[in-house]
């Protein structure tokens, strides 16, 4: 096993540990925990035994197993970026809406006008 594989596996072990902490604190549902667990175990398997991806590569008609992993990663990352992007847009809109409502509830009028009104 090369050094990089060891590092990544240690990192994955750490991530799984963090997930279990979250689960224990009930910050995370059991379903979500299992989903992430399966995901990281798959990543670990792919890292330790890269040959396994060859099965997928042959099935999909891509030359090398590593390429399949990279292609899938890129597609997934793009999708996630898009999701995050739309999310931020929505949050920005919501914040604007709140800021508007708060500001409209606290409209002030300058002093000179008040004086004029009291003179009238």
């Amino acid at each position: 096993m090369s050094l990089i594989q060891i590092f990544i596996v240690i990192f994955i072990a750490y991530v799984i540990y963090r997930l279990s902490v979250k689960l224990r604190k009930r910050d995370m549902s059991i379903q979500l925990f299992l989903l992430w667990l399966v995901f990281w175990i798959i990543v670990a398997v792919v890292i330790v035994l890269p040959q396994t991806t060859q099965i997928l590569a042959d099935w999909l008609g891509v030359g090398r197993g590593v390429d399949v992993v990279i292609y899938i990663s890129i597609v997934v990352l793009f999708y996630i970026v898009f999701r995050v992007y739309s999310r931020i847009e929505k949050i920005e809109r919501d914040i604007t809406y709140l800021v508007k409502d708060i500001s409209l509830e606290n409209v002030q009028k300058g002093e000179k006008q008040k004086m004029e009104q009291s003179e009238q």
Partner: protein
Amino acid sequence: MDKVFIAIPAYNEEKTIAKVIEDLLQADYKNIIIIDDGSKDETVNIVKKYPVYLCQHQLNCGQGAALRTGTEFALKNKADVIVHFDADGQHQVKDINNFIIKIKEGYDIVIGSRFLGDSYNNIPFTKRYFIHKPAIIFNWFFTGLKMTDAHSGFRALSRKAAKQIRITLNRMAHSTEIPGEVIKNQLKFAEVPIDVIYNDYGQKFSDGFKIIADLLKHKILK
């Protein structure tokens, strides 16, 4: 008489806002609403000295958002005409009346055009051909509405138009949004010539790209 509201979005305009307000008060415009868009300078304190409405955004949400807030406030206060005016002193108070006259003639939305005004020749050549002309074409492409100057930000809305038009884009792209709304809501639209004074605080060339980016984003994500 028609109730006229002047809505002025202001973001860090301490250098110019006092003069803008004074000019408007002198011209006897009584309903002035300044929307402070989270300024970090003295803008708010300066505005507080004048008999105008002050509406404060806690966070900077952009000019489009500020205009929407101002428009909503005006509607709440039974405005018949709502004028969008600039805080940096580039618009002339003397031009406002032309907008109001047009609205009274029955137009729903009146947009000020620098390209019809006398001061057009004072605009730097580069700005004319690299920002304004492309902007006209761009707007026409996106909205199908031919107007000589859609990006002036100096406009007046009738009560009906203000209710129907929704400015959804927060930043500067609201100017392009409006013509689209005009078509969608079948509003009666007119242009009036305006004069503008250019100073250092106007939009930079790079802002043009930001506006285009905002619009594309909006089109894609809708």
